[in-house]
């Protein structure tokens, strides 16, 4: 198993995976709790359109990640504008933007035609495509996003738990929301290569759902999410290397296993507790 460290691409993937495994769930906590679980998926599909656009325009491969970032940011700005100005309902908005992004991606990939494109590697993620430039990009984005999260943790918490009261307290809620969606967009855009369009959202959401099963405070939920995210990414990458299966799938399946294990443990524990106290009422909710 240590043999995988002989390969540069694997070392790069592990470093990038570590960064993605920390930053995705950390951002994801706020998405899930605001019932915006599909936001990441939506921005991922928009980012994919950015990738395809780059291929069609023949942008140099050094610049194409930045084009993807730019498209993701534009998508995020549009989502934010529609959400706040036009008051489109959240689920309809995300459905609209997601299918729009995917449709654009398909069209751009089609226009790019002749180019040798491996679309599945963008959909499901791939280790081989993570170059050293990608690693630097993921690392710098992860550091920036985590710093911002740490700096504004209490504001994001308040807005996420009770937006109206946060507004009354004088917090700049609209600007915080905009900043946050931009943070999600850049995170998604840089993690896209490795985890894949279809699965980057899952890396933001599933570790959080698992953590919510056991976390008793907000702080605990954040910590547990990140621990699960990192573990799932590293285990998933190893499995991907060993079995030769797309990275995104392995990472997400590992995260799902965590969820399943915690869910099973929690159910068992509740059953035991209930049979001991001899009543089913308990503190159900």
């Amino acid at each position: 198993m240590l043999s995988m460290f002989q390969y540069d691409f694997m070392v790069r993937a592990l470093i990038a995976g570590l960064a993605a495994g920390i930053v995705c769930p950390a951002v994801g906590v706020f998405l899930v709790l605001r019932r915006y679980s599909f936001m990441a998926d939506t921005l991922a599909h928009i980012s994919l359109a950015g990738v395809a656009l780059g291929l069609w325009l023949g942008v140099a491969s050094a610049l194409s990640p930045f084009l993807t970032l730019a498209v993701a940011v534009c998508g995020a700005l549009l989502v934010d504008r529609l959400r706040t100005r036009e008051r489109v309902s959240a689920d309809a908005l995300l459905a609209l933007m997601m299918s729009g992004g995917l449709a654009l991606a398909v069209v751009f990939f089609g226009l790019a035609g002749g180019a040798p494109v491996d679309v599945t590697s963008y959909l499901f993620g791939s280790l081989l495509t993570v170059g050293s430039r990608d690693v630097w990009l993921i690392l710098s984005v992860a550091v920036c996003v985590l710093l911002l999260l740490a700096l504004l943790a209490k504001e994001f918490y308040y807005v996420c738990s009770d937006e109206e009261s946060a507004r009354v307290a004088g917090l700049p809620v609209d600007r915080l929301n905009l900043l946050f969606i931009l943070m999600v967009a850049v995170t998604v855009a840089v993690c896209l290569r490795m985890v894949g369009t279809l699965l980057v959202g899952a890396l933001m959401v599933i570790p959080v759902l698992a953590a919510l099963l056991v976390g008793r405070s907000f702080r605990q939920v954040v910590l547990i999410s990140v621990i699960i995210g990192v573990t799932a990414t590293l285990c998933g990458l190893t499995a991907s290397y060993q079995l030769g299966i797309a990275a995104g799938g392995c990472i997400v399946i590992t995260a799902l296993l965590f969820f399943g294990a915690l869910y099973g443990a929690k159910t068992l524990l509740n059953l035991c507790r209930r049979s001991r106290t001899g009543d089913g009422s308990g503190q159900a909710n």
Partner: protein
Amino acid sequence: MEVLRLEDVFFSYGKQVVLEGVSLTVREGDFLALIGPNGSGKTTLVKIVLGLLKPMKGKVFLFGTETGRFSEWYRVGYVPQRPALDTTFPSTVAEVVAAGRFGRVGLGRRLKRGDWQAIEEAMEVVGLLPLYDRPVTELSGGQQQRAFIARALAGQPDLLILDEPQVGLDDRALHEFYRLLRYLNCERGITLLMVSHDVGVVGRWVSRVACLNRTLICHGTPQEVLNPINLSRLYGTEVRAVAHSH
């Protein structure tokens, strides 16, 4: 001193006029109950006071400053109608209450020891200090209500606004709750504005009552306001029975 003044406030959602020419003054030390039937515009009025909605016409002053230019929002504590936290949100009592301090601390700043003292004192006042680390989702309705009051108190407000805080409290919890409000009002000198649709016992606890049903129907001391004639004007005839019963 004047804490809050509304001057001829109008508001409508689309074509539906909800508030019409409402003028009201709240002075320092008042404990004002704003009563009226469901849909009479009480929550809307509160949201206008808090700057969440802009009046179509008229002016609102907080501590002498018009709400549009008001910046000392930490002086106003707010307990929303039905706690906005949903039943799955992971938070301990301490985390919820601490949020009430954020407006005072400033963007990107950490809570200092003095802030934590204020937070713990707020928990102490509502009797939740022993439940510091308990997830709010495990609290009873009354305890959750108190957690949200503590959150509002953590910012050490001069004016506390509560929107139908009694909903979901049983008789005993309700009595405790009013005693807490009276303590905050009399001992802490916090001005209180409480929205209520209950006219049964509220009159025994508050210093002033304002009746709202799109327009301000009447306001004054409970003795002046809470009589069968006013109440039937406010609620229509059906409530007369309640008004007679005590």
